[in-house]
């Protein structure tokens, strides 16, 4: 329809009709979020049944409910132990780690306005690897004991993002300066990791490589607690800035004209995303792909409004990581594959399918 016709039909669409259309447009996004939530609960039940001891999803849910309503639900000690001590924390770790990485990725893509941005764009992953390598090969680090590797990975990750901030600050906080500074940092830490691997023993190098592949095998209730706390708090904080991130998408000048403190929002969101990423990958190793692709998949369904995109990406990320880990545990059982390998095997075909089927431009 030409514009002239559009104009001549002035008043053809009633205001009430427009409002209803918009309400159902928003309703569909909320529905997607609710469905994803339900999907996570269902998949979590299935994931907790898989393993060497055979129990049914119903028994899993009963064991979970029995902990909260002891009188109403009955379970056996055996099932209780399997669910609460062996499997549930790993399932929850998958959910919160996937959620954290996806939210961090969505935020980075939003503030850098770049479809290739991910939580690892600013050199974060190679910084974490370097921190872990330092701990594994030289036994050196900022903290000691069982937290040596974790502490190192976390500290070097935050160090990398502060360095990126410092470099970008010098030239002005724009997507270009941040990405270029991130690439420089990434190569620097990769080179240092390679050097450590070169001087390390064979077993140490193997441990470093395994660490970097990413796995949920090191999960525990303590770690789940930390990841969940950081992820949830930072996600809520990022969601608070949804409108500002949306405005950045229209360009820095427009964002300023709409009242956004562009540099402040960009730096703060970058730090929040880095904090989530650091606290996830210091426990899991670098799990790639989710932070890049979960936001894309979600954007194709719910669109680019970060009020919905951020939480929905988190749920999609949780689904992918939990699904990938479930497959990784079962596909070659009793061998458990690193989940970092599985996420790509599972996600890439799905992503390509959506990518080929898409009707609109997303960037």
């Amino acid at each position, binding site marked *: *329809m030409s*514009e002239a016709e*559009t*104009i001549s*039909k*002035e*008043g*053809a*669409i009633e*205001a009430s009709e*427009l*409002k209803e*259309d*918009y309400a159902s*447009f928003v309703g569909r996004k909320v529905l997607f979020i609710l469905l994803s939530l339900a999907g996570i609960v269902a998949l979590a039940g299935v994931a907790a049944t898989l393993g060497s001891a055979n129990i049914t999803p119903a028994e899993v849910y009963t064991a979970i409910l029995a902990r909260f309503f002891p009188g109403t639900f009955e379970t056996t000690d055996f099932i209780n132990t399997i669910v609460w001590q062996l499997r549930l924390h790993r399932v929850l770790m998958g959910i919160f780690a996937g959620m954290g990485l996806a939210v961090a990725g969505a935020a980075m893509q*939003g503030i850098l*306005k770049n479809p290739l941005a991910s939580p690892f764009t600013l050199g974060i992953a190679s910084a974490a690897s370097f921190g872990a390598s330092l701990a594994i090969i030289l036994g050196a680090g900022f903290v000691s004991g069982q937290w040596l590797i974790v502490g190192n990975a976390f500290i070097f990750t935050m160090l990398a993002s502060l360095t990126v901030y410092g470099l970008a600050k010098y030239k002005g906080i724009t997507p270009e300066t941040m990405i270029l500074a991130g690439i420089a940092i990434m190569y620097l830490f990769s080179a240092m990791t390679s050097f450590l691997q070169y001087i390390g023993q064979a077993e140490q190098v193997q441990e470093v490589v395994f660490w970097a592949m990413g796995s949920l095998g090191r999960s525990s209730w303590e770690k789940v607690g930390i990841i969940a706390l950081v992820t949830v708090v930072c996600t809520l904080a990022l*969601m*608070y800035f*949804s*409108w500002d991130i*949306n*405005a950045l*998408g*229209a*360009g820095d*000048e*427009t964002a*300023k*004209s*709409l*009242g*956004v*403190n562009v540099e402040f929002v960009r730096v703060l969101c970058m730090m929040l995303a880095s904090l989530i990423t650091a606290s996830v990958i210091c426990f899991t190793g670098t799990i790639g792909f989710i932070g890049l692709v979960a936001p894309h998949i979600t*954007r194709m369904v719910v*669109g*680019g*409004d970060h*009020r919905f995109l951020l939480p929905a990406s988190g749920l999609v990320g949780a689904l992918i990581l939990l699904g990938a880990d479930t497959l990784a545990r079962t596909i070659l059982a009793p061998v458990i594959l690193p989940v970092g390998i599985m996420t790509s095997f599972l996600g890439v075909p799905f992503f390509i399918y959506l990518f080929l089927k898409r009707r*609109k*431009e*997303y*960037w």
Partner: protein
Amino acid sequence: MVKITIKDLSFSYGSRRILEGLNLVVGDSEVLSLVGPNGSGKTTMIKCIDRILKPRGSILLDGGRDLQSLSRQEVARYIGYVPQSTTSVLTTTVFDTILMGRKPHMGWRVADEDIDKVVDIMKLLHVEEFALKDFSELSGGQKQRVLIARALAQEPEVLLLDEPTSNLDVKHQLEALDTVRSIVKKTGISAVMAIHDLNLAARYSDSLVMLKNGMVHAVGDPSSLLTMENIREIFGVEAVVMRDLDRPYVVPIRSLNAEAV
């Protein structure tokens, strides 16, 4: 009544002076056009008034407050900005794009009142047909109307437009400026635009500001300002100004610098 009084406004990129000692008054319910050759500071001036760039000098609003001392959000409630470039990187629908204009007024939640205002503005600018289409799918003329709608959703006192007719064909140029002028006359807000086309400027503006090398060369109504002498001095162009229409009409003849050929 006066919307904005600009006093001694200067701006430089590093050591390069772009604007120097500008004084300007934007009256009530008027369309004011900034004209001048490339590099004369039209766009920079628009960006300085909205504090997208940080100028020196003062920009006094109608209550006497200095815009330089306000927060970005307060500025956004007083001034709406329609950018020149119509590229939007992230996907967003027309409805959400215009709703973004409510940002200076609303919190995280969108109130019914905000939705109502967006709907009214969409009808005013005739963009309701493609409310749920993606902004990137629209034609140039449609995009321009949506961007004006977003700026109006800010409920500003002053609308700033940066080259509102670039990238538009002749029909849409007229439509865009008709829209701006009728809104200005209907609602009593004022519009300041940077524009290249002297004839469009003459036809749609109440007053013109001629800029040259970052300084105001002359201010006045189109008929008194668009003279052969002024055009020669500012643009370095020999032109004939026809005055048999209700507004002056400029026909450029030749560039004064083009010695060869």
